[in-house]
């Protein structure tokens, strides 16, 4: 079976989904089921002290069945990111985490200086770190050399749905990496996810494209099939592009010959 191995864990699906931006927890749970994902990103936030009875994500998405991948969304310094992930680790013994240290509010583009700093510390503390990063092949190699378990270059800006404008960078990163390469951010439609997989990526992370679709559940299923199609396409080896036409029916045997 063509499983997806990252760090010490193995997953069935190569589609990782985010759990944000949904109408409610039920829709979140239904979308996850439809997507077939067994790894989902989650954020760490304060519990509601004043109303401790309000439902939690865990009540709808069982962490024993679906692996939670705690992220550091919203962190702009390595310190904040470390603090969040140490809490995440404690809260469920999570070791596999997604590090993201953002550069600014407007672009949510990663701050690679801070990201590399935080990655170094997390690895030393025994975390299995998956890293949201720019599509900079050199930075990706530096992260791999630090011992992270996966690099997650952005296709385009988080939540922009702009796809993967710079495919050559993703290809270079994939070719040079021994660890999984996961396109994170920018996937806006099924074909974007297929393209990421056709480039050879090991997995794709999708959130907005599913949660913000008119019909999130159906889109979740679309993404599931897209990732499978893209993976199969990559493994089967596409035909070469040619600049002129090539007939699909033989000339030989034509009655008007």
């Amino acid at each position, binding site marked *: 079976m063509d499983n997806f191995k990252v760090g010490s864990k193995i997953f069935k699906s190569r589609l990782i989904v985010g759990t944000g*931006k949904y109408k409610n927890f039920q829709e979140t749970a239904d979308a996850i089921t439809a997507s077939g994902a067994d790894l989902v990103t989650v954020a*760490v936030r304060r*519990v509601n002290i004043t109303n401790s009875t309000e439902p939690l*994500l865990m009540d709808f998405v069982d962490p024993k069945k679906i692996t939670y991948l705690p*992220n550091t969304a919203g962190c702009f310094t390595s310190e904040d990111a470390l*603090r969040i992930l140490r809490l995440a680790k404690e*809260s469920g013994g999570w070791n596999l985490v997604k590090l993201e240290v953002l550069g600014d509010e407007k672009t949510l583009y990663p701050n690679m200086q801070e990201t590399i700093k935080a990655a170094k510390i997390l690895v030393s503390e025994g975390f299995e770190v998956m890293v949201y990063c720019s599509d900079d092949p050199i930075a990706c190699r530096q992260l791999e050399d630090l011992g992270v378990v996966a690099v997650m270059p952005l296709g385009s800006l988080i939540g922009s749905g702009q796809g993967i404008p710079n495919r050559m960078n993703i290809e270079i990163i994939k070719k040079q990496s021994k660890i999984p390469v996961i396109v994170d951010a920018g996937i806006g439609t099924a074909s974007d996810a297929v393209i990421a997989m056709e480039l050879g990526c090991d997995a794709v992370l999708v959130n907005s494209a599913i949660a913000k679709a008119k019909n999130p559940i159906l889109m979740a299923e679309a993404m599931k099939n897209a990732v499978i199609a893209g993976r199969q396409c990559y493994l089967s080896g596409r035909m070469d592009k040619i600049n002129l036409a090539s007939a699909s029916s033989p000339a030989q045997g034509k009655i008007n010959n």
Partner: protein
Amino acid sequence: MIKIQLNGEIQELSKRHNIDELLKIFSIDPNKVAVELNRTVVSKDKYITTYVSNQDVVEIVTFIGGG
């Protein structure tokens, strides 16, 4: 009577409580949260032995939906 800052807000407690009691007071399921005391994580096995003092800063967090 002590005052602590809990999740960003001042809370008054009748006396010093340990984390375990603190969670009960706010009826929070310990299995679904993580606790930070003055910026240091408190591991679950220390909930009984760890007491909050006046002026302490406590964070109780859980997982929510995120991308």
